[in-house]
């Protein structure tokens, strides 16, 4: 028999098998708890710190008092001694004399004795000289008085905690209430509405007429020297070079510092053999990073230009390839590749899987030598297969086209560089290639109450 309520549900990523209603109830409880806890903490801070301080500054009445004695009070807090100034004063209210030990309205202990001692010394001097000082008493309870007014700025910092809790709880409650009882489709429409309200996409341009097809990098258009479009390399290639340069700098700096210490130690006659042994793997690591960086630099830059971009299935265009550097290449390949990418959550991990679904070798060259100032250059035609899927990008799924350059370099490990392409859907049978005739915008209708 099926149970109507299950304590444990199967879950993979965002897909749940449990009741949506119970899920929403759970969310409400969690967010309401955050909100209530935040309000409670805020109220406590207000009551114990802010309101007394405000009253001391605005409602307490100023009178003159006689400082009788001053000292530093001590207390133990988790085996740490904390201090506070303790000033014994005598003052008169409505003909009645009050004596109390006080300082400020919070009168809290804190670490560091010296600053408290300095405060106490100034009051002790007044006591010794018989000087009168100002104090402020509470008109509702005249035996409560302080000798220092003002605000402590760090009290306001304490509000960060309750305000964060209130923001999380309140925001979560609003979100849950807005989405309460809404279907998956209704939620998706609401998300889409907010996206459509933006006049421009994230890249600052008007929304594309091709939903979920990525836009080509604007810098690429018109930037080519031989052909109109120079393709920017995959960002990861540039980050990899920066990463190797940073690793090389770090490894070599550490090696040099350690080498100086070791040599200096041995020179002075008290060298450490442990440090000397540690130097060996560090030198090897530094040499390795230099070798990799040199390889990256010596392979030079790869430039790809094409005659049209974005492309569409069935379209043929010209490709210009240029490889600079100083090396002997055994084999060089340029491939047109289509890759699917799926991101999914497994437990608490987010995993990404990639699969190549199309690969076409456009260019195979080698062996040949590339010299400085004389890059290897060639052109070839490139055709996106007819009937192929266009580029597609959603939150968890992606279909991407790219040109992949694989180089087998003599004496060095090979290299691989990628150049993303954008392939739009095939020319619309009803309109132009920019999709102007087709009306991509969706529609949302709400008929309200039937019969009204």
């Amino acid at each position, binding site marked *: 028999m099926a149970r109507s309520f299950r304590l444990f549900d199967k879950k993979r990523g965002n897909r749940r098998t449990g009741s949506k209603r119970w899920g929403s109830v759970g969310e409400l409880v969690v967010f309401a708890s955050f909100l209530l806890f935040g309000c409670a903490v805020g109220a406590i801070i207000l009551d114990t710190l802010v309101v007394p301080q405000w009253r001391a500054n605005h409602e307490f009445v100023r009178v003159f008092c006689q400082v009788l004695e001053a000292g530093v009070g001590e207390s133990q807090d988790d085996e740490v001694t904390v201090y506070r100034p303790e000033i014994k004063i005598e003052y008169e209210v409505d003909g009645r004399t009050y004596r109390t030990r006080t300082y400020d309205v919070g009168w809290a202990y804190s670490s560091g004795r010296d600053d408290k001692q300095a405060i106490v010394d100034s009051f002790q001097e007044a006591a010794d000289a018989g000087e009168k000082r100002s104090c402020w008493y509470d008109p509702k309870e005249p035996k409560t008085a302080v000798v220092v007014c003002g605000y402590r700025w760090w009290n306001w910092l304490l509000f960060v905690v309750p305000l964060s809790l209130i923001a999380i709880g309140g925001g979560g409650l609003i979100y849950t209430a807005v989405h309460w009882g809404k279907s998956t489709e209704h939620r998706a429409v609401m998300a*889409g509405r907010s996206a459509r309200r933006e006049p421009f996409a994230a890249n600052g341009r008007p929304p594309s007429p091709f939903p979920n097809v990525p836009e080509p990098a604007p810098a690429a258009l018109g930037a080519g020297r031989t052909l109109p479009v120079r393709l920017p390399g995959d960002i990861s290639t540039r980050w990899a070079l920066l990463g190797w340069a940073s690793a090389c700098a770090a490894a070599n700096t550490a090696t040099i510092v350690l080498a100086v210490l070791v040599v200096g130690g041995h020179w002075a006659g008290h060298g450490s053999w442990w440090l000397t042994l540690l130097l060996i793997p560090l030198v090897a690591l530094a040499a390795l990073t230099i070798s990799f960086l040199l390889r990256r630099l010596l392979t030079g830059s790869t430039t790809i230009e094409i005659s049209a971009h974005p492309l569409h299935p069935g379209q043929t265009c010209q490709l210009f390839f240029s490889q600079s550097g100083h090396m002997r290449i055994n084999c060089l390949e340029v491939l047109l590749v*289509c890759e699917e990418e799926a991101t999914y959550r497994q437990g608490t991990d987010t995993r990404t899987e990639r*699969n190549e679904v199309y690969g076409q070798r456009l260019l195979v060259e080698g062996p040949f030598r590339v010299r400085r100032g004389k890059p290897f250059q060639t052109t070839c035609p490139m055709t996106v297969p007819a009937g192929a899927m266009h580029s597609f990008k959603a939150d*968890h799924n992606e279909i991407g086209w790219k040109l992949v350059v694989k180089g087998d370099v003599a004496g060095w490990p090979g290299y691989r560089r990628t150049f993303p392409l954008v392939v739009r859907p095939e020319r619309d049978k009803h309109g132009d290639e920019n999709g102007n005739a087709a009306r991509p915008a969706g529609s*949302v209708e709400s008929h309200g109450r039937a019969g009204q």
Partner: protein
Amino acid sequence: MSESRAIIRLDENGRTYFPGDTLSGSYHLDGISSADVKAIEVSILWHTEGKGDEDLAVHHFQRREAGNRIRLELPPQGRFRTVLPNSPLSYDGAIVKVGWCVRVRVFQSGGKELLSQRSFRLGKVRPGRLATS
């Protein structure tokens, strides 16, 4: 007792649609009393299947609600019509699949929901298979 369901019909049954085409059709409820229906949602949407977590976007959405104070019955049938967008096209890949469908969701009294959907293809794209070379 007959099974409750929503039957969806596309006007040009089974054909492949292309960007800019008009998709129209109708639905009717079978085995559900109109008085039990609180609301009906009709969505024309694409969603992904396969290895990754599901992505979904609604292209066309209409919601009809029954009155609350004086119970007004919804007619147990309706029509929908929309112009299809340029993308994404239907695709059957190795680990990513993109599918289009018309989905009718019926909210019944007592918190019950009934979901029916009818798939259709947008565009003619060759299936993606793992590259061998």
